[in-house]
């Protein structure tokens, strides 16, 4: 009798132990499946980004295996139907979404061995940027089987987090035959163009900054980050990044930098007011600049001197820009001016390229005025000096004025006025002084900012330097839907 009782008790103990161990194993399997589901969802997002990138590059295979459905609402379950997609989804008034059901990911092991997914792309009625490039919403769901019996975890907290579907898929609103874990993520993608202006200031050597000025950023293409395309301190952004390949002798004198500082070499001095990150090392290629190569007869030549060779000059078209070579110095002394006019029809059809073999210099009350629709590029072989409001960029857009310094020299922007444009002069020592500001971006050998002058990096230079060129798509937001609206969990 005693033996029978003992054996019974022992059997019960074994049974309970096995049951609990089984539950633990089941919970472990469900946890692993939940992790695998995210892998499936993320791989689906990757495929969506790849499709958009290929589409931006004009690839004919961008939408292979994708389908398109004309609808303003996205599916909550695995989509079906539709026709073969040939282009990116369209916005309102005829909204559509493209979807892809990638091949299931096969795994080997004791647990789940297959992860499926599906992904949709639509515009979500997000606006285009000022250059006409569309933002997109990507929503992806990964599903992984949860091996084992349809049994909830032995810990309620696991169920709150992972919400394993045992008999019913709450997202699709349908019954299921085998347990599964599913995770849904949604990302918003913004178009990014290829550009040399990935940061505000790129230097080969030191930066020294003093006075009460700041380095920060704005976005002339986004009305929420600029006012009429111009810098607005109330809409200041913090992407005025600075990078220097050799920081020897660099000193910020505790001036404010609203962005990240990256350097190679000794630590930059007095960086207490850098509002972003400070990191080292910094490595980036800085391509050398060179003079344009124009064929004989394709350009107009002028002789430089103490006075400008012309007072008014017209642009060419975007396809055939006016090419102007100035042999010698280009001087605009006090009391004189040069006007660049835009005679062509269209809002993006007035282009002109200057090549100054000597110095570029405006001084005193002399100035250059560039009409609002003009896009001008200046190649300068000598020193560049401009002061005050001596370069009036009527468009207010830095993308429309490009100075390219060739070889070595100095570039000086001074006075109380503002300069809006870019400078690509990796061999030049640049000085910004006075009380005005420079908005745009620059590449230089060294940089000195003093006298209260500020520098405002225009983020639009990096996003879209060409109205039709999208180099890539990047995350603007990333969100995982772990909500349960029926229980009031809305996030």
């Amino acid at each position: 009798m005693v033996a029978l009782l003992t054996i019974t008790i022992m059997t019960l103990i074994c049974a309970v132990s096995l049951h609990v161990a089984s539950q633990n194993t089941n919970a472990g399997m469900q946890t692993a499946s939940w992790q695998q589901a995210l892998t499936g969802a993320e791989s689906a997002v990757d495929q969506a980004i790849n499709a958009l990138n290929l589409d931006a590059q004009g690839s004919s295979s961008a939408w292979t295996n994708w389908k398109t459905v004309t609808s303003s609402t996205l599916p909550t379950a695995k989509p079906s139907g539709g026709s073969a997609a040939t282009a990116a989804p369209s916005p309102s008034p005829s909204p559509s979404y493209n979807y892809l059901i990638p091949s299931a990911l096969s795994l080997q092991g004791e647990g789940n061995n297959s992860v499926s997914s599906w992904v949709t792309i639509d515009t979500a009625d997000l606006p285009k940027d000022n250059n006409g490039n569309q933002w997109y919403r990507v929503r992806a769901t990964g599903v992984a089987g949860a091996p084992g019996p349809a049994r909830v975890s032995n810990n309620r907290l696991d169920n709150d987090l992972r919400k394993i579907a045992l008999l019913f898929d709450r997202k699709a609103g349908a019954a299921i035959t085998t347990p599964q874990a599913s995770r849904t993520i949604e990302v918003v993608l913004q178009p990014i163009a290829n550009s040399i202006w990935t940061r505000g200031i790129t230097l080969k050597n030191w930066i020294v900054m003093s006075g009460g000025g700041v380095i920060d950023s704005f976005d002339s293409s986004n009305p929420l980050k600029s006012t009429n395309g111009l810098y607005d301190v109330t809409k200041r952004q913090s992407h005025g990044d600075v990078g220097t390949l050799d920081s020897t002798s660099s000193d910020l004198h505790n001036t404010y930098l609203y962005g990240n500082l990256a350097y190679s070499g000794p630590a930059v001095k007095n960086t207490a007011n850098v509002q972003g990150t400070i990191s080292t090392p910094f490595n980036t290629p800085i391509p050398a600049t060179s003079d344009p190569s124009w064929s004989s007869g394709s350009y107009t030549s002028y002789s430089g001197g103490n006075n400008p060779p012309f007072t008014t000059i017209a642009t060419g078209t975007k396809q055939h820009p006016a090419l102007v070579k100035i042999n010698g110095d280009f001087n605009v002394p006090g009391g004189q001016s040069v006007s660049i006019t835009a005679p062509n029809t269209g809002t993006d059809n007035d282009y002109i390229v200057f090549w100054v073999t000597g110095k570029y210099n405006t001084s005193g009350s002399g100035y250059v005025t560039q009409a609002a629709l003009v896009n001008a590029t200046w190649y300068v072989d000598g020193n560049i000096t401009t002061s005050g409001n001596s370069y009036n960029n009527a468009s207010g857009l830095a993308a429309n004025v490009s100075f390219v310094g060739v070889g070595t020299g100095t570039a000086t922007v001074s006075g109380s006025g503002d300069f809006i444009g870019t400078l690509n002069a990796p061999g030049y020592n640049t000085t910004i002084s006075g009380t005005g500001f420079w908005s745009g971006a620059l590449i230089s050998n060294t940089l000195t900012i003093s006298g209260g002058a500020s520098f405002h990096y225009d983020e639009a230079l990096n996003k879209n330097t060409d109205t039709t060129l999208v180099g890539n798509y990047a995350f603007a937001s990333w969100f995982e839907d772990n909500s349960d609206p029926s229980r009031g969990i809305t996030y």
Partner: protein
Amino acid sequence: MKIFGKRTRLAFTLVEMTLSLGCGSVILAAVVTAGVALQRSFAAVEGYSMSESDQLRVLDYIAMDCRRARSVSVANNVLTLVVPNYYDANGNPVAPTFNSSGAIQYSGGATTTISYSKSGSNFVRTVGSTTTAIASNVSSFTVTPQDLTSTVSCSITFSPRFVYLPGPGPVAGTTVYCNTFLRNALARQ
């Protein structure tokens, strides 16, 4: 003369009884000892399983919320995250829009605040005003506020649950780490 018939009495001999009682005792003792050992083993495995379950749950919670957080702050070793509300009051998913700064938002900018901290020996997750212990037996929690615009680093140490071990005894604790990239951080938009 009466001859008595041989009486047959079936029984164990003293020797047999002694041997059987001895063997039985040994077997029962072995079974009981095995049972106790099994229980100890079960308790150890259960403790390990629960700890691992707690550790995975904590890491999964923090990683998920950090990845989708718009902003992060750390004060007094409390990690506070702000995540957007993805659904409206009727339980319908909402479309993304831009806020006044040009960043992506959901539900007109409505958000939910989630915080993580250690409370006694529990590790708690607080959503709004609701606090839930998502793990127990926690001995320490540390958040490294290095760069809250890009990553969050945390470490959580769990005390051992099964401590009935001969020398040198159980480990002091199990520490798990997470280093999560803030994919949705507003500061980078």
